[in-house]
């Protein structure tokens, strides 16, 4: 009798600890001398796997089937990871820390490249054998770490300004705004229309999450500021960065953004735009197809268009997203894996993928492909955006960097600190995080 509550206590405690014991698998590393990430060592042929997020459209399976038909001895298999990007990253990291060869090819988010490369989890790719000239240059840099290529871009992504064409026309505005001031002026005009009643002016993601980092990066890059300079040193406590941050602060303070903005994640923002209650919306390209759906889920189908995001004195600097394929350093059959990566990034596969999923391609030629442009009229705009786009800071401790940015920016936009204070704190914090 006496033992029962105590045993319960012990079991409860053990659960608390066991929850954190998960990272224990890699204890006693160090004996990995052979894992040199040098180029030209991609050898071995045979079956391979592709670790990726959910294959919602089923197109990835089609691509793998096509590959398998042509390469009966180098069969590829898809391993679907959880939906949540951070959980995908966790699983890939667990796989890497146990040096497992289960995953051959990793479908990496662009911001993970530095962390994975620096931890020697990726095999270096031969820069000269991949025809990199055909890719949009900005996308290739997302696969690089310190000038060496570790991942090949297969899809890209960049912010666009969605705007309500119908409302702007009614207000007598022919062109979408190129600057922030033009955007506010357009809002004021639309607000005077009877149709403009209850329509919020602008929204970019400011809920605490990766979207906030993206919004802050776009605002700060558009004013000529940056989080880190070209050499990787933090350089955020500058007048330019302050101007960018103040754009976000004022957009919230002046009621340009809806009050609920700090609780709206990407999907929350999409709902808001699709409900017809939003004039200008900074969003990724995936919204285009969904907001144009004719099944009644969107009230703005056919009523909107996209433009490059505005900046202080002309188009702003959008942020780059997308996914790259990399080869796990611990995988067998790296030569097959390299062939598979080349195959997936080739034009027919990228085109099929873009048509099936609306994910943006990384090959320049596809942006002027007639069939593509017919289906996605925004492609020329998107190409311009990607060419102009900036990456988020490439940091080995990216998880800490993005959290530091979110904390500082969130406090500033919710009025807990001033812009000056937030940037000074962030500069100090980034200093700690990026010094080797």
């Amino acid at each position, binding site marked *: 009798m006496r033992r029962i*509550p105590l045993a*319960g206590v012990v079991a409860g405690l053990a659960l608390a600890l066991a929850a954190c014991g998960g990272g224990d698998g890699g204890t*006693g590393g160090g004996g990995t001398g052979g894992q040199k990430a040098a180029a030209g060592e991609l050898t071995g042929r045979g079956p391979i796997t592709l670790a990726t997020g959910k294959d919602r459209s089923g197109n990835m399976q089609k691509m793998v089937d096509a590959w398998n038909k042509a390469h009966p001895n180098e069969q590829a298999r898809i391993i679907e990871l959880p939906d949540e990007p951070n959980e995908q990253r966790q699983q890939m990291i667990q796989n890497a820390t146990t040096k497992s060869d289960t995953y051959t090819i990793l479908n990496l988010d662009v911001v993970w490249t530095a962390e994975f490369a620096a*931890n020697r989890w990726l095999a270096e790719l031969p820069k000269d054998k991949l025809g990199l000239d055909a890719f949009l240059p900005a996308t290739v840099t997302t696969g690089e770490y310190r000038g060496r290529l570790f991942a090949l871009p297969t899809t890209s992504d960049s912010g666009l300004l969605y705007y309500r064409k119908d409302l702007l026309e009614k207000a007598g505005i022919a062109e979408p705004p190129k600057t922030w001031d033009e955007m506010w002026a357009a809002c004021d005009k639309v607000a005077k229309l009877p149709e403009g009643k209850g329509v919020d002016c602008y929204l970019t993601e400011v809920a605490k999450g990766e979207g906030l980092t993206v919004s802050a990066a776009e605002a700060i890059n558009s004013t000529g500021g940056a989080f880190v300079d070209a050499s990787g040193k933090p350089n955020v406590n500058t007048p330019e960065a302050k101007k960018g941050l103040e754009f976000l602060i004022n957009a919230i303070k002046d009621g340009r953004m809806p009050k609920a903005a*700090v609780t709206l994640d990407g999907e929350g923002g999409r709902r808001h735009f699709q409900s017809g209650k939003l004039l200008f919306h900074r969003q990724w390209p995936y919204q285009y197809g969904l907001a144009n759906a004719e099944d009644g889920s969107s009230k703005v189908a056919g009523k909107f268009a996209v433009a490059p995001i505005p900046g202080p004195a002309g188009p702003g600097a959008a942020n780059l997203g997308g996914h790259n394929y990399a080869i796990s350093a611990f995988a067998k059959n790296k030569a097959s894996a390299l062939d598979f990566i080349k195959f997936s990034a080739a034009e027919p596969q990228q085109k099929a993928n873009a048509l099936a999923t609306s994910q943006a391609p990384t090959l320049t030629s596809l942006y002027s492909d007639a069939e593509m442009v017919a289906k996605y009229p925004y492609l020329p705009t998107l190409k311009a955006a990607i060419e102009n786009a900036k990456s988020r800071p490439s940091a*080995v401790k990216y998880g800490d960097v993005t959290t530091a940015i979110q904390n500082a920016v969130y406090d500033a936009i*919710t009025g807990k600190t001033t812009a000056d204070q937030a940037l000074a704190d962030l500069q100090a914090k980034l200093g700690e995080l990026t010094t080797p």
Partner: protein
Amino acid sequence: MATTINEGTPVIPTGRSRRAKVADSGGRLAALLLSPTMLVLALVIGYPVLAGFRESLFTRGEGLDADGFVVEGERFVGLDNYAAIFSGDRATAFWNAFGNTTFFTVTTVFLETVIGVAMALIMQRAFRGRAFVRASILVPWAIPTAISGLLWRWIFQADGAANAVLGTDILWTADGPAAKTAVIIAEVWKTSPFIALLVLAGLQMIPREVYEAAQVDGAGALQRFWRITLPLVKPALLVAVLFRMLDVLRMFDLPAVLVGVNQKSVQTLTTISWFEASNLRYGSAAAYATVLFVYIAVISYLFVKLLGADIIGQAREVRKKPATKAGAKTVRKVAA
């Protein structure tokens, strides 16, 4: 358990030394029979605890070499990971999370107990549709926490049901006291049935005669509740409350799904530990987990010592005199 086996062993009365030997061999048999359990416990509880503690004394992946690669291998740092928790910025975050964890534990367990006991009293009554009420009260407990977190996030979103019903436009899932309230509401909704279930089991153990006797003696409904129901259901209630406390002190999924992992107002100790682990600082994560372990151990020790002392005392008395002495005592008190 050991005593049970001793008592159960047939003792052959052939002199003192023989009896001692048999008792001795009985002890050995008990040890032998218990050893698989102990082995499993050591494997699934002892090892993770110790491995976690060991991990907390090491650090790795600090610093980059000239080519930008992370320096490999782990380094013994003693208690540095612990010292780091209590210094500078991290100390502020730690004490904030510590405060949140404690606050959530006190508020949710208190509310759950009150509501859970009330639910149990309702479920115990005999009335038409009782099975339906019982089942519907248990539904929240059956829903996985992450899912109920999502449900509540819909309810609490800016244009969600909560604001529509209340006629307010509170940003429940932003930072601040509203977020805390949202977490408490969702947590209480989800886990009150757990307490209700255990209390209901306790209630059904109380013999009807005790109530009848009290009624004959002229005790009112309120008196019967305070003097009979509550004292007699206390052992079950205390175990339920203890389990809830252990659970809430480790709370992670609900605030993470409902509000987000990185919001100061709902950050708990497990959130910080998770954040450290997901950024590859396993040593530091293990240190946070160990601190939480110690905190939970202290809380549960105090709880068992201060409130639960009665459970053990009662159990001992019950074993000595197989009569519901405590029950008899209360009845006498009511009668007096």
